[in-house]
């Protein structure tokens, strides 16, 4: 709720000026990427669900495609699995083009969002299904299945039917059923969405450790930004069929390429304004709201003065003080609108000028709580803010 109000109070940015990034691997290694997606397009009637998406996934990497529902991320996953074919572009796995290759001949296995466990088969037979289809000898199947079930900690439940398992256990079966085939890539479709909050957090840790232990290459689709950041080596942010940014969780969070990415990955405290003159290493930034003073920000020197921009700051970058700090550089005064105590931290919604509502946080019981109506000062390091140009 807090994040929403903070974002909504900003003037909306419907269009993005930044072009979609083509993610390139900074490949120092000579190993070819496991997955190469080259400019794939997928249309459903008049709607372009996936629009010229390209990316690569390295061996052993946990790669997440993050985006709101309808972003086209599931389509990308289904094109990797072979349930859909791209209208344009190429999908290559281990260097081989997968176009026209049906799902049953692709070296990938999917963990379905609904798990899609066969209700008439036992846990063991579910896990053995893929090996059986590839006519693996029975003795070897037993061996592999036992190994996979041990890995997901389901030993002893071999003869249960899926209906007799808890949600978390079903999730493990689905995972075991995929990884027992030793696929080149394990595809995960919202793997934890069906679990409740606590189980979800436990499974995040476990899924990650299984992936590392088995050296799996994973492509995971999720709309849950925290989940993606905690589990992934790299994240790709999708929206409206396009892939906007690819990078490590830190990169994407700290240096989002546009306002959408910034808002989607966390709380984005925003202030629209106009770029001013250079002052030493810094630049002046004049907020559109004339009640607010100009700010001194550190930014790229190339942008000409007069350009419209939006300043964005993460809540944890802001520091709150009751008294005016002596020499803090970018500084704004505001009024506490709401105080929200959340245990380990306290969130404040702060009214800045006429239009903006920002969120800032203080940890736990360190400071005495500020009360609504109080006047405070917000300051931050001049290099912390991000400017997005329109």
């Amino acid at each position, binding site marked *: 709720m807090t994040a929403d109000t903070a974002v909504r109070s900003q003037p909306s940015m419907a269009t993005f000026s930044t072009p979609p990034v083509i993610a390139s691997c900074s490949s120092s290694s000579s190993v070819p990427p496991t997955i190469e997606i080259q400019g794939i397009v997928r249309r*459903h009637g008049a709607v372009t*669900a996936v629009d010229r998406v390209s990316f690569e996934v390295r061996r052993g990497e946990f790669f997440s495609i993050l985006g709101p529902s309808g972003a*086209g991320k*599931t*389509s990308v996953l289904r094109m990797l699995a072979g*349930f*859909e074919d791209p209208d344009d572009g190429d999908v290559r796995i281990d260097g081989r083009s997968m176009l026209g290759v049906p*799902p049953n001949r692709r070296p990938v296995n999917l963990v379905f*969002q609904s798990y899609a466990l066969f209700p008439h088969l036992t846990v063991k037979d579910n896990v053995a299904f893929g090996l059986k289809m590839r006519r693996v000898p029975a003795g070897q199947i037993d061996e592999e299945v036992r190994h996979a079930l041990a890995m997901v900690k389901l030993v002893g439940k071999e003869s249960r039917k899926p209906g007799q398992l808890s949600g978390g256990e079903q999730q493990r079966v689905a995972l075991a059923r995929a990884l027992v085939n030793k696929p080149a890539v394990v595809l995960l*479709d919202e793997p934890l969405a069906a679990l409740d909050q606590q189980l979800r957090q436990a499974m995040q840790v476990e899924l990650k450790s299984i992936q590392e232990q088995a050296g799996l290459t994973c492509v995971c689709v999720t709309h849950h930004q925290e989940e993606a950041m905690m589990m992934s080596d790299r994240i790709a942010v999708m929206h409206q069929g396009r892939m906007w940014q690819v990078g490590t969780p830190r990169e994407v969070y700290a240096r989002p390429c546009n306002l959408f990415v910034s808002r989607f990955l966390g709380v984005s405290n925003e202030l629209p304004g106009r770029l001013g003159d250079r002052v030493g290493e810094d630049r002046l930034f004049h907020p559109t709201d004339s009640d607010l003073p100009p700010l001194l920000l550190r930014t790229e020197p190339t942008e000409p003065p007069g350009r419209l921009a939006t300043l964005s700051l993460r809540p944890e970058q802001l520091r709150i003080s009751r008294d005016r700090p002596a020499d803090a550089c970018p500084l704004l005064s505001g009024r506490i609108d709401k105080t929200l105590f959340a245990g380990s931290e306290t969130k404040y919604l702060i009214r800045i000028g006429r239009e903006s509502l920002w969120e800032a946080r203080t940890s736990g019981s360190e400071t005495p709580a500020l009360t609504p109506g109080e006047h405070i000062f917000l300051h931050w390091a001049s290099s912390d803010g991000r400017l997005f140009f329109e």
Partner: protein
Amino acid sequence: MQTRTTGSGTVSPRESCRSSWLAVPALVWMALFFLVPLGLVFAISFASRGTYGGIVWEFTTANYLDLLHPLYGKILGHSLWYATLTTACCFVLGFPLAYVIARSPARWQPALLLLVMLPFWTNFLVRTYAWMILLRHDGLINNALVSLGLVTDRLELLYTPTAVVIGLVYGYLPFMVLPLYVAVERLDPALVEAAWDLYASRWAVFSRVVVPLTMPGIVGGCVLVFIPSIGSFITPDLLGGARSMMIGNLIQHEYLVARDWPLGSAVSFVLMAVVMAAVALHYRQADRSAGPVDER
């Protein structure tokens, strides 16, 4: 998300084409033994009757014009009346039953529904015959009425319109209960409670909240009862007298007794028109209410 819209339709178009051939034998069968015979009946309804009961292939609308005769009109009229009465009686009996089942503990519901459906799975002739035993001049009902002193003379129950309607209600009550059950089961009990909370009387709760929200089930149930009732043959044949003949009996009579096939065919198509009108009503209602009901 997208999974829903793209669904399984995209798996492999080549396989799909191959599998649709599986439908061909059954479709040929239905065309040959269902559509062709129906077409034949339709064609014959415009032909004339031969001297010895055969068909003379001369186009005429005389058969349909013959149906305007008051004798046939009367049969059609009270067929409609019996079927309507049956539908109404089924609703009055079936709605409380459906409501009680839908509001009983979830684990009892399948058993209760089975209890309603079980008689339906017994032979229709046998079920109709059971009423002959009950309604006979010396049947159980008359025995009971006399020994209780409610009547002095035994009532003539069998071979009357009343017997026909009782038999029809008995035969088709399960058809009413099932769709009503589905509709009531979907009705959120909180809506009824909200109406109570907002000062509605019992009648207002029923007529302003329950009925509008279960309308698809009500229409469905009524159509499902009306259709077999209007086309019934066994019930009026066994329980009805000469004066409670229905369309079904008329058709049988024209074909097998009077051997006037063209006239029988014309009667068949009038019956079919009535049935199709009821079906159309059902589909229109289903279409109109499909959206909001399925939202849940």
